């Protein structure tokens, strides 16, 4: 056990954890931030995606000891006071079905749009293939990403 100070959604949190504990479980079980979801635990579904220094990362594959001073942003902290344009687009395009994958989808899309502000369909496919949606909300995710990209210009 060791003590880790990590910055999540702008707030520094202190947790006692084993060095190898994935950030996913530290967020969910130690910090009560349950917006980030478990879907596979092996880096294959992307439900657990968060931002680490603005880049998309799978929290189930990121040991708490590797977070260091990188800033963690989870779905709870993406928007701040206002909704992030992606969150707005997700609501307007009625994207969620069961909703369980959507935190991961939105976080991945946020990192993607920062890098690629004018995405083509092929670029969206490539970036978003990492995040599985069991309910098949992909067509609406595509539309919502395009709408958010426009809004963010």
């Amino acid at each position: 056990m060791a003590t880790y100070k990590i910055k999540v959604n702008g707030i520094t949190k202190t947790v006692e954890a084993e060095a190898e504990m994935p950030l996913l479980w530290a967020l969910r079980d130690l910090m009560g931030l349950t917006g980030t979801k478990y879907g596979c635990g092996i880096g294959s579904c992307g439900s657990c995606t968060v931002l680490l220094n603005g880049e998309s990362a799978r929290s189930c594959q990121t040991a708490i000891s590797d977070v260091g001073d990188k800033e963690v942003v989870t779905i709870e902290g993406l928007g701040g006071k206002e909704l992030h344009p992606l969150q707005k687009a997700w609501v307007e395009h009625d994207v969620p079905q069961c909703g369980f994958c959507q935190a991961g989808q939105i976080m991945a899309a946020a990192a993607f749009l920062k890098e690629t502000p004018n995405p083509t369909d092929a670029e969206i496919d490539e970036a978003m293939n990492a995040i599985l949606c069991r309910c098949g909300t992909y067509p609406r995710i595509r539309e919502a990403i395009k709408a958010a990209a426009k809004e963010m210009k």
Partner: protein
Amino acid sequence: MKTEVSRRSFLQLIGGVGASFMLGGFATLACGEEGASAQNPFAPNVFLKIDPDGVCTVSIARSDMGQGVRTTLAMLVAEELDADWSMVKVTQAPGDRATYGGMGTGGSSSVRGTNQQLRRVGASARAMLVAAAAKQWGVEPSACRTEAGKVIGPDGKSLGYGALTAAAKAIPIPTDVKLKDRSEFKIIGKPQNRVDNLDVVTGKAVYGADVRREGMLFAVCLRPSVFGSKSETIDDAKARAVPGVVDVFAISSGVAVVASNTWAALKGREALEVKWTEGPTHSTASLREALKAAAKDHHTMPEGAKRLTANYELPYLAHATMETLNAVADVRDDRVEVCTGSQSPDSAQNNVARATGLTADKVEIHNLLLGGGFGRKFSNEWIGEAVEISKRMKKPVQLLWSRECDIQHDLYRPMSEHVLSATLDAEGKPLGFSHQYLQAPGRGNGDYGTNTYLPYEVPSAGLRSAGVPSSVPTGAWRSVEHSQIIVANECFIDELAHAAGKDPFEFRKSILKNERLLKVLISAAEKAQWGKTMPKGSGQGIACFEGYGSRIAHVVEVTVKDDAIRVDRMVAVVDAGTTINPRGVEAQIQGGFMDGIATALYAEINIDGGAVEESNWSDYGWTRMSDTPKMEIFIEDSGGAFGGMGEVGYPSAPAAIANAVFAATGKRVRKFPIRLSELV
């Protein structure tokens, strides 16, 4: 209408849920939803409450697993209430059959089974609000009308529903109310977004897995990989040495590892050494052989000019809901609380009562959002496990199934073999149609009576079903038996068309006896420009289905290139009778079709040595963003009863894809998932 008693239990309910699951510091983790709001609400029954601030809260007694039922059912009440939709909220009913009646959510039955009751809830409340306003104004109720949450008097003055709550409570509940005519609908038929969207996109939505309670422990379970085997010896020394592990013990379904967090529980599970008893050593290969050998019982049909026979093989499928099974159980001597996402929370209440020796009224089942269901979350066995563990630990415990448990211990869509044969007359018209439907294991011995699941005119048709024994546990999967029977039927009809020398659309059209299905079929063909010239390596496929009170036709375009099949385009025309929420219908048809692609191209569960070979998303293939075709969905209602929507989008989807693969390659699909090397 419900009586005073249920009004009281509803008030207890809304007062009791929110607070008890709050945990200091964790802001969003309440289990259940609204706490008691303003005093003096008007709550004529358990399904509706109107507060003095005008907020109308509809209690949803069906489970939302992504099909959007929390939105759709609220729309039904709001329509007849003439509510202002922006003032409508929903709350989730706890599992309680005595208060809510049957709550099982499956078979696309939520709307079909409850729309009359819920519309009456809205209409009666509306009548009471009108009567209250009329009394206040000294006019006849018939002189008043309602609009968007207001009663409007003959002289144009108006009162909001919120201002009428106290007065409405004094009005006797009407026994007879008239429901609106379809032409009067203002909310039904208008696209509405899901009521949970904002919570979902901000991470505030609470699923079973997100419930946290003071002092709660986290558990996972190690299960035998071979179905039917049990733990013989457990060496838990290393597991107990994992920091954070609190206890390890055998439960009815395996070995539970309880810890202070999920990660510790998973590490503890990894360190367990368990010797299992032996179990049956089925394999998908041996079961396939057994199924083929069991194919004996043909329907006898007249001979014709041509006879055609084809076998179709369908695999076991896992549900693989995005949220794996989980429950928080808090078992005390005199009461039990459970937080979970179940498709049958009312049965869960009875199951838990039986398991703990308590009466049902001492068992509270808080049903939360379900991160997917598809039929998996009916059986409630995970709740029994959580109860077993909490009882032993004397603490609240969350049991979470790992994805490996989920894939390897599902209640699978059975694997099946379909032997189809048919005879055609000299003009190519079908004379006889025989379908043998064989499953491992047989489900309820599969007595389908005289139902052939054929919407086509065939003078002599029969469906016979049988099963072979298998240790693989099975259950209902989106669209249940239609996920097998319709896929085989619609592939075979295509083969018949070809044998008759006819276009598959024209052939279906010439023998469809179901008018409403015929309409969507013709419309889909038109919209998709059926028959247009396709580039080399591409083809169009068509299939249709009627069931669950709705009808659909799919036209699909695929391209076969570089040893891969790609679905480029899908056109669907749907007739839901009367559509409640077009946006919800579109979502279900999109989702059903993505399931069609997944199961046509990737998904299968294989058994070897009595155990499942797949274990996670890495080897249980599913669709990704790049699999998503262009989808064009048209709703063309024929009127009448509201149809079901959760399942209708699936069965004809994989068949249309398979038929398009034939059009593209000239070779038939006889086995799912489709592999180009296995086409015949």
